[in-house]
């Protein structure tokens, strides 16, 4: 019984011994690898923001409303350049600006899409209403003409032509 426990105890001892050499606390990546990850994150945020702007544009957002977002994107890009030189504050600023642009672009896109749909619906409704009015006018033109003709006739004074000529 004692002999059968021996390998198990040896294994346990080895595990305990190896755990002494493991780093305490959370596992950290080296500075350079962490920086590379951050730069990748900055670039991904920039591209996501750029795609959001393009989608907003496709949804009908105007150039004027998107111009401030383009400026912010360029600002985020300049922060990215600084971040590539190892400045993590600039990286965070770039990510923050990019996320801000993404959110604004999505909002602008959905607003523009709704406005564009409303505009199209209104335009087609006006077109159909105009068609309805025009059809009525064309169809009833003869009746209207007769009605006004009758009114004109009723309003006119009856003069005896013979008397006038005689006079």
């Amino acid at each position, binding site marked *: 019984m004692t002999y059968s426990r021996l390998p198990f105890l040896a294994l346990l001892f080895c595990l305990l011994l190896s755990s002494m050499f493991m780093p305490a606390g959370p596992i950290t990546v080296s500075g350079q690898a962490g920086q590379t990850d951050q730069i990748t994150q900055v670039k991904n945020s920039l*591209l996501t923001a*750029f*795609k959001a702007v393009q989608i907003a544009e496709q949804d009908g957002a105007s*150039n004027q409303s998107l111009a401030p977002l383009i400026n912010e994107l360029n600002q985020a890009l300049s922060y990215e350049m600084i971040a590539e030189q190892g400045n993590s504050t600039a990286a965070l600023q770039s990510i923050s600006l990019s996320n801000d642009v993404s959110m604004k672009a999505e909002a602008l896109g959905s607003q523009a899409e709704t406005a564009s749909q409303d*505009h199209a619906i209104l*335009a*087609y409704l006006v*077109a159909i209403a105009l068609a309805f009015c025009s059809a009525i006018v064309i169809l009833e033109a003869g009746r209207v003409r007769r009605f006004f003709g009758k009114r004109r006739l009723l309003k006119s004074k009856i003069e005896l032509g013979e008397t006038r000529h005689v006079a």
Partner: protein
Amino acid sequence: MLHRLPVFLVLLVSLSAIYTSAAYYADSKAPAQPFMELGVYANSGLQGYIPNANFTITPPQTTNWTITVANMMNAAQFAMVIVRLGNLTTQSPNTTTPAALVPELIAIQLFLGTGETSKLDFSWTVQNVSQTANGVVFLNLLINGQQTGGQLQIGANEGRNFRLIFELWTFDPSTESFQYGFPGTASTIGEWLQVWFNTST
């Protein structure tokens, strides 16, 4: 009275078709051919910057130019201007291929809105030159305040006929990478410029 309803319906359908077509036409964007423009400008003009011209830079000399990029692509663009240094024998870019074998001095990235023209400062300094025994001159350049990696591998005989090549690249969201030129109707269209200069030793 019985005949009036079919006549009215025919009129209504016909007029609706005409008016809704007019509404669609009025609501649609006018067709336009998309393009991008790349330009290089200097306050003093660039007339002298041609092959075998007498324009000579005496180091250390700083030259301030402006690069313009215009976006008429009907969509926001992520553009990049790559500046390369070449000499008389350098293979020039064309409408399909960039001058990829020529060393890149600087790559300037920018976002452009639809219909926007951006101006980029391009300040370049020939700090000093070095000449080999057989008369080939190599440059030490500073662009927008940045060192371009010491003496460049491109040299020119007696310092004559160096050229700065400017290429326009655009970001392709489908491949998530920059492509040379801008997307045309069938394929990408390359856009490039070059400016020639000499240096005195």
